[in-house]
């Protein structure tokens, strides 16, 4: 599936020879993102430097009927940036400058290749805060976060990437450069087009510039661990905290399997002998934090926590949070292949969902580790398996089908923060219903009639 010399030359004339990769040793490492068991070799990888480069690449690709897959750091978890056969990967990592930070308007303008952590670090230098913190924030690109509408550990209080995008610059499939949104907090001119592109997974256009909203950095925070002998008690604690009108920034759940794997890796003192661990954090004004932390610890105890431990200091708190961010990868210690899911249910249904996942895995004789953002109903059941064992993989896929159906029955969604990509396509029509699904396809048809942008993602 190699490109003809003329096509390689075409891209080279736009971005220069050093920014076009076609040799096997160069492009094999772009065959995948962070999703297990999905890989496909692209025909080439191209690194644009400017919005103009992107525009000319898309025009050229359109003229040659070449599929284009936009990619950031390749840490996605639904296969959103896995190349399609014969496609050209447009890798945005060299557009990696923060363009402007405006403390008077609390906004930051950036290119898409900047890492999420670098955005928050830049904000912090002005006493400001960019809250969305996906597990891979040290390396994930902000462009990828917008394209997948990533969440994170702080979603309960602070929301997800969408809640911080004020404006976008997007290159459309035909090469036109379009801008949507503004610095204005209130802006209702026309359709909210930026929202169409947030979470569109590179299927409608390529994001080349992002204007982000920042918020004041909280002055204090308190992190704590609550340990449980019964998973249901952890779920009850979460409900009790919400019912007490407390909105903590983080309420993370880890089952025993996950806690053991994370502890093996991070050595942060997570207990390995209890059924469930809740990692809780409240942030804000110091007085409010002290009050809320006290009440949360009390609610955990009255709802059956065996023990509540407060983080000793900021370093301890950071170690716990970063250990949790690595939960998914740490689970790979157990078996060769880890199939991660992203099912989300209304918070009131959490206990039922956790129990259903455990029972389904047991019935199918499968190993599962479950963790997730209990405060916002977003669970990550992770099946520990081996992609070379076809029979076991069939059981995994059957179990996932059952869990997806249960999720939809409970009024949930097949993906809370990872996107549909390749991994969740099969359940999308069922969740959305025919007319919603068809509207989506009509939008895709209108913007990308030749179907060249990230083909085969979200839907066929």
């Amino acid at each position: 599936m190699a490109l003809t010399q003329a096509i390689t030359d075409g891209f080279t004339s736009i971005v220069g020879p050093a920014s076009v990769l076609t040799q096997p040793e160069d492009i094999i490492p772009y065959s995948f993102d962070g999703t297990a068991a999905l890989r496909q070799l692209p025909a080439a990888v191209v690194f644009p430097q400017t919005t103009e480069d992107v525009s000319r690449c898309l025009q050229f690709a359109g003229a040659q009927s070449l599929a284009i897959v936009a990619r950031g750091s390749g840490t996605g978890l639904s296969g959103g940036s896995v190349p399609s056969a014969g496609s050209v990967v447009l890798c945005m990592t060299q557009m990696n400058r923060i363009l402007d930070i405006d403390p008077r308007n609390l906004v930051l303008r950036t290119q898409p290749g900047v890492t999420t952590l670098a955005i928050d670090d830049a904000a912090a230098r002005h006493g400001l805060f960019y809250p969305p913190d996906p597990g891979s924030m040290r390396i994930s690109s902000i462009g990828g976060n917008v394209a997948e509408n990533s969440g994170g550990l702080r979603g309960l209080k602070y929301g997800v990437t969408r809640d911080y995008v004020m404006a976008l610059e997007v290159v459309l499939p035909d090469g036109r450069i379009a801008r949507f949104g503004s610095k204005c907090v209130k802006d209702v001119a026309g359709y909210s087009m930026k929202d169409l592109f947030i979470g569109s997974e590179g299927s409608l256009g390529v994001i080349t510039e992002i204007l982000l909203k920042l918020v004041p950095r909280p002055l204090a925070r308190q992190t704590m661990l609550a340990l449980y002998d019964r998973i249901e008690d952890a779920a009850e604690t979460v409900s009790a905290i919400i019912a007490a009108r407390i909105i903590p920034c983080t309420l993370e759940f880890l089952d025993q399997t996950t806690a053991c794997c994370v502890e093996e890796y991070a050595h942060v003192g997570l207990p390995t002998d209890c059924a469930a661990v809740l990692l809780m954090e409240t942030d804000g004004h110091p007085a409010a934090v002290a009050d809320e932390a006290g009440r949360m610890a009390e609610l955990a105890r009255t709802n059956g926590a065996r023990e509540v431990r407060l983080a000793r200091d900021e370093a301890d708190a950071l170690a716990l949070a970063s250990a949790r961010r690595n939960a998914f990868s740490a689970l790979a210690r157990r078996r060769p292949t880890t199939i991660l899911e992203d099912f989300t249910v209304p918070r009131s249904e959490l206990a039922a969902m956790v129990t259903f996942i455990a029972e389904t895995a047991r019935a199918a004789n499968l190993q599962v580790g479950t963790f997730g953002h209990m405060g916002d109903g977003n669970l990550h059941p992770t099946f520990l398996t081996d992609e070379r064992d076809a029979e076991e993989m069939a059981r995994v896929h059957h179990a996932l089908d059952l869990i997806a159906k249960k999720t939809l029955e409970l009024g949930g969604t097949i993906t809370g923060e990872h996107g549909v990509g390749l991994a969740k396509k099969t359940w999308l029509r069922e969740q959305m219903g025919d007319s919603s699904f068809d509207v989506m396809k009509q939008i895709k048809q209108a913007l990308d009639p030749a179907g060249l942008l990230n083909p085969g993602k979200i839907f066929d």
Partner: protein
Amino acid sequence: MTGPTLRTLDYAVLQQCMHCGMCLPTCPTYDQTKRERNSPRGRIALMRAVADGTLDTTSGFAEEMSYCLGCLACQTACPAGVDYAELFETARSDIERNDSQPGVARRFWRALTLGFLFKRPRALRAVGRVVSAYQRSGLEALARRSGVIRLLPASLRRLEPQTPRIAAAFSNALIAPQEQPRAAAQYRVALLTGCVQDLVFPYVNRDTADVLLANSCAVDTPPVQPCCGSLHAHNGDLAGARVLARRMIDLFPPDRYHAIISNAGGCGSHLRRYARLLADDPSYRQRAHLWDSKLRDIQEWLVEIACRRPAAAPFADPVTLTYHESCHLVHGQKVSRQPRALLRLLPGVSVVELPESSWCCGSAGVYAITQPEQADLLLRRKTANIVSTGAAWLATSNPGCHLQIARGLDGAGADVQVAHPVSLLARAYRREPAAIPNP
């Protein structure tokens, strides 16, 4: 016994990498180029392609494995617990087996160094004595002044100034085969003197022995010791590494000691993994396991036996000091808090944290020779970080880092001294009222 290739290796070791990307921000080469092939998960993808038979061990593959520092920062970062060291050594061994980096000169130097000098400690010392005499006689200075150096081929000319100053006497002249502490010995330990350490920093070995004696250890230091095989394993000669591992185990029967002590980060990282190296050797397997369980970095051992706080300061005046972590000590051996703990024992010394303390300095075994440009970039970054602390001393626990960083500081005109933490401890003990004698 040929050992596994990427094709025959347990495939689960490759699958362990689920390419989540958590390694990317910790990889010095990815940080430099932002290209996936220069990242840990990218390299593992290439190795997996070789294992799958979809890629040969091409010259491009060989170049990539040579560009990797082998610093193992990725192994510390990896939540999934991928054994990158094993994959990396297997890949380099495949490359040698398939002769993917041909060249007569390269083959000659490999045969001379890995095949001969670093297998014969007496021959290595003989070469060391010749170089030492050349450096001390004034011939070196004359050669540099006269411009004779310019007659050397470019590749050697670039290396010539990097030739470390060889010591006048080696460890065997400084340390008796068996030394006893003044008070009753509580532990019996073996001291490994290393190759570069022995030729360039033999006094670090003397200091190590002194600090052990001051902490109630009886010290066995055989005068002639084989190379540990680290250079061989790291550069694709696993068969040579196995031969040397067996010689080491024969020379230091592990059941005889409470601990076997290494004071070089790079050697220790390899030394404590003999069990894996000799897994297929029934006559050595068990002893190799015992060996691994006894192997300690000197700093790890001192903290384990509650190192005595010196009663005197190492320097007459108060000193600020910072600490650079050898990659194979922090990532390969996970020894990170112990050196800092020892440095904090030193009276009159304030320890400041070095920014990016565990980022590779570019020495990385023979990397400064094989990849001089990247090595130089890393060295400049390291030097700038050290200068930013304002410290007068830099402590580090590996001879390669020591040489590289001293060269970098010198080049930058920075007035910072470099020392092994045990040398600073030894210096403090020697200044105690009833001091151990100066060597």
